[in-house]
């Protein structure tokens, strides 16, 4: 069945450094990938989404490229800010599972001054 893997449970960085949060997936269908961000005590919000192979998508300084050859959709930012501290979820929708994305375990990003 479909699955999403986020290998890092916690990433701790100093403000101003670059970050990459890993996301790989498995599906037999045509994938639609998402990144959601959840700040403390808030609901998840959509950060990025893509279904186009090898095309970079960007929002709020974050970017990701869907690579179907490696089944990956890593999230990157060139310079993290304190306000980026949050829980980040990668999610996969293949249009088959009642349209609902399947979420990865999540990566907590903690940015220090």
């Amino acid at each position, binding site marked *: 069945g479909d699955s999403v893997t986020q290998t890092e449970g916690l990433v701790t960085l100093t403000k101003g450094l670059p970050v990459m949060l890993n996301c790989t997936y498995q599906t037999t269908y045509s994938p*639609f990938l*998402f990144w959601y961000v959840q700040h403390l*005590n*808030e*609901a*998840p*919000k*959509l950060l990025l*989404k893509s*279904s186009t192979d090898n095309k970079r998508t960007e929002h709020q300084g974050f970017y990701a490229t869907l690579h179907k050859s490696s089944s990956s959709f890593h999230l990157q930012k060139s310079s993290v800010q304190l306000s980026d501290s949050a*829980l980040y*979820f990668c999610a996969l*929708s293949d*249009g088959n599972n*009642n*349209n*609902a*994305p*399947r*979420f*990865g*375990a*999540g990566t*907590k990003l903690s940015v220090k001054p």
Partner: protein
Amino acid sequence: AQTIHQWPVAEIKAVGSPLSLGCTIKGKSSPNLYWYWQATGGTLQQLFYSITVGQVESVVQLNLSASRPKDDQFILSTEKLLLSHSGFYLCAWSLTGTSDYTFGSGTRLLVI
């Protein structure tokens, strides 16, 4: 513009007591509706989904039930709460055939 509203914002309930959580979507007709549960700091576990009024499919039950009495309303309930029901309950909606998927602000539940 479409809005999604969840109620209550938070609840503290005793083990064995009943529970009813609500979700209303305004500004969209015939949305797909979903219930998710999240333990503190954990991943999002889909519980139920509904494509149309009166029809609800279970993904993971966790001794909970769901109903869709109106096109714009989705209810999550149980007659007897367990300690394990504590967590963050999120309602979400999407349109059939699209990838847009939006969460409500959630209900935080503590069972004691």
